[in-house]
């Protein structure tokens, strides 16, 4: 009896397995114009498409990036703002009024035209609801004097706010929403190349927006965002062609493509100009001493760190100003344009410490003028995506040892580390900063004054570097119109502080991984055709989706 049931069970499983296998094959064959994207591994999706609630967009797999569009596109590959829904803009009234020319002929995916009215409405919505003001815009009001012109008023000079990242929402649908902050927007209507079709916790299906303003785009009919719980599972799905484009947080790309190099393509690139900095605590001895911070920076060989700890996948910091030479070269003051880090110079680091009154002890480690051994503690998280940092810390230890500085590493959970960083409870830590296109934003995050005392949370100036001069310069910068001599002076001043005082130690840029099925689709960005960054979770996703073609079409 029992044996018979058991056999029947096995038989059922086999039959199911066989029928299931047929099904999958059938679907894959028919889906030539359906590209499947895995942007994040953040578990099952929820039906949440409110584009003004930036914080929870990855809970719907970042699918909103193909549905909604910003006023200007942050082109992260070229590091420039591209006119998008807005064709041009002008400042007046000392930076308190921004006049936008809204692109004509753009339609929402329900067929209604998008006008300056919608743009002004969106800014007004943000002004009225603090919970939507994720960009911290000092808004005073917004109006649409004509169908193609929107005028935005600010309470203070707003030259440096990132207003262009705002994604307009349709007034004719949103004006009936009672609480836009708690609105999940389950049926999104946007201006992007794809429009919402259906939702399940495992897959969000988008179809081509018939009203899309860039004529002839996009080519593929359907985009599907698939949910994953882990990098491992995402990679396995790519290997068996269950998904076409993935962005695992970090992985050994060569191992993934092994045996399938003709079918799987990849590009590891700087997905934004966010830089990983080593942060010395400026509210603590001896990391508040400029000679110590400078010695640390001089002792580092950033190329070695990248090659040994990061598999050579990241780009290293080159300019001691902390700015990206490629995209921000024009903001670097003339006297620093030729300045490069180059190889490590432990001898110079030791010399500088000796000149500042530090003496080398018997074990080769320096002793501070106050008689303290120059032994520092680096606090980092261990969990993904920060696993690489532990390897980085080992190289740092070896390199700093040569300059007579001892480095110990302590690790903690991501949550605890984040908390300690915000509270200033660390001697040295690492953190990525400045992933936006605004140079002001980068310097503001580094230098913002006054500092938050240790024990009080902050989202800026984690290193607690105190400088009244930096505060004045930032203020000048914020109030100077773009390209004005005032801006140039403020920039040069802040760069001087960074080069001479080294409040933060630039290490390397963050890297993003994009991997895809080259046997199913063509048009992926690559080293030879770097028209966009390669990751599936950036605001530039629509640039890639518009270029994709089914193989053989």
């Amino acid at each position: 009896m029992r044996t018979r049931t058991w056999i029947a069970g096995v038989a059922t499983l086999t039959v199911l397995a066989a029928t299931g296998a047929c099904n999958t094959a059938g679907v894959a064959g028919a889906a030539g114009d359906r590209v499947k994207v895995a942007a994040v591994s953040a578990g099952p999706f929820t039906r949440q498409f409110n584009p003004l609630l930036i914080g929870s967009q990855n809970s719907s797999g970042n699918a909103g990036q193909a549905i909604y569009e910003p006023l200007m596109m942050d082109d992260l590959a070229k590091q420039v703002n591209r006119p998008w829904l807005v064709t041009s803009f002008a400042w007046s009234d000392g930076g308190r009024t921004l006049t936008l020319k809204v692109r004509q002929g753009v339609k929402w995916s329900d067929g209604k035209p998008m006008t300056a009215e919608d743009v002004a409405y969106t800014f007004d919505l943000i002004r009225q609801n603090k919970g939507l003001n994720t960009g911290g815009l000092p808004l005073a009001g917004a109006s649409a004097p004509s169908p193609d012109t929107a005028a935005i008023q600010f309470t203070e000079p707003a030259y440096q706010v990132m207003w262009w990242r705002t994604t307009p929402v349709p007034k004719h649908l949103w004006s009936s929403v009672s609480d836009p902050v708690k609105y999940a927007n389950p049926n999104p209507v946007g201006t992007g190349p794809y429009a919402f079709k259906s939702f399940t916790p495992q897959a969000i299906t988008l179809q081509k927006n018939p009203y899309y303003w860039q004529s002839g785009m996009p080519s593929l009919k359907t985009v599907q965002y698939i949910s994953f719980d882990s990098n491992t599972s995402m990679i396995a799905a790519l290997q068996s062609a269950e998904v076409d484009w993935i962005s695992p947080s970090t992985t050994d790309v060569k191992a993934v493509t092994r045996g399938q190099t003709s079918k799987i393509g990849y590009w590891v690139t700087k997905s934004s100009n966010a830089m990983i900095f080593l942060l010395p605590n400026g509210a603590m001895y001896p990391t508040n001493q400029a000679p110590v911070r400078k010695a640390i920076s001089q002792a580092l060989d950033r190329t070695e760190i990248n090659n040994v700890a990061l598999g050579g996948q990241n780009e290293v910091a080159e300019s001691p100003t902390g700015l990206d030479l490629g995209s921000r070269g024009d903001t670097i003051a003339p006297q620093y344009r030729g300045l490069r880090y180059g190889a490590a110079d432990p001898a110079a680091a030791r010399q500088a410490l000796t000149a500042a009154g530090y003496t080398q002890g018997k074990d080769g480690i320096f002793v501070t003028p106050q008689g303290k051994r120059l032994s520092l503690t680096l606090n980092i998280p261990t969990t993904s995506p920060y696993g690489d940092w532990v390897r980085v810390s080992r190289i740092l230890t070896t390199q700093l040892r040569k300059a007579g500085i001892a480095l110990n590493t302590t690790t903690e959970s991501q949550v605890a580390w984040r908390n300690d960083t915000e509270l200033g409870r660390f001697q040295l830590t690492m953190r990525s900063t400045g992933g936006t296109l605004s140079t002001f934003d980068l310097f503001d995050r580094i230098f913002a004054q006054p500092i938050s005392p240790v024990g009080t949370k902050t989202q800026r100036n984690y290193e607690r570097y105190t400088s009244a001069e930096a505060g004045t310069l930032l203020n000048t910068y914020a109030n100077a119109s773009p390209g004005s001599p005032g801006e140039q002076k403020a920039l040069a001043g802040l760069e001087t502080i960074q080069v001479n005082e080294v409040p933060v130690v630039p290490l390397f840029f963050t890297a993003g991984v994009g991997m895809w099925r080259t046997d199913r689709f063509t048009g992926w960005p690559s080293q030879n055709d770097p028209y966009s960054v390669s990751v599936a979770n950036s605001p530039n996703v629509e640039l890639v989706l518009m270029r994709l073609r089914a193989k053989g079409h």
Partner: protein
Amino acid sequence: MRLLLRRLMFYAVTAWVAITINFLLPRLMPGDPISAVVDRFNGQLSPEASQALAAAFGFDSHASLWSQYVTYLGDIFHGEFGLSFTYFPTPVSSVIANSLPWTIALLGVSTVIASVLGTFLGVVAGWRRGTWLDSVLPIGAFLRGIPHFWFGLIFVTVAAVGLGWFPVSGGYDSSLAPSLTPAFLESAVYHSILPAITVIIGSIAAHMLTQRNMMVTTLAEDYVLVAEAKGLSSRRVMIDYAARNAILPAVAGFAIELGLVVSGSLLVEKVFSYPGIGYVLFEAVHNEDFPLLQAILLVTTFAVLTANLLADLAFFVLDPRTRDT
């Protein structure tokens, strides 16, 4: 009956303690949900976003811990769990409703199969002690020592990516919408085979070994000897005399395991990207999502308590000795 009443009282007190701990625990953890969101964006979100998030999450009003506790208790009675921070502004109840059924179906079924099959194999192995069956035991011990997810990774690499017999990930075919149609159910069963086998292999050995050892102990009892001496059929001695006594610890263990099913099996879910609640719980902890965390812990607590109550009732039926006191 007195015993049963006493047990019920005990459960009521335990439930209250658990509810209170659920309330306090997330609030004692370091960090806060806002910096969790900001951190997720790797420096792309403006620092001002934290003020916006505070306003959206309703953190700008400062209620005392006691008044928060009173509101929390009231909300629980109304089944109100609020909005999840991780999946803002999705209500916690719908986050759980999307994931819990998958976990119950997958883990519930495979836990029952593993327990029943494992216990049965244990009974047989115990009865036939000293025969060739004993040589299977080291294999059981070996299987028990290996973590579930390791088998999962092997299955994905070999059976899914390598041979292509099974799907690599997910709970169903992405081109189907969840419904009770034959096509969807078939796809769901097909997708659940590898994760289910992973869970079963991972836990069957423990059941078998425990049950075998209990059997061996029980078989040494005098009443088993008497039953054999009376000339009862060996099947009757094995099932009614030995197994009925030896099974009691297994029933208790099974109840607890069944209760814990609702908290999910994170690693198996991660390996197969199976849409269960284990991953949601992980995200909730990771993002300091108090409302979601509280709700999942509450559901788990009640599932464990209910399972224990059922185990008590089962003892009541199985073991006449409990009825005397």
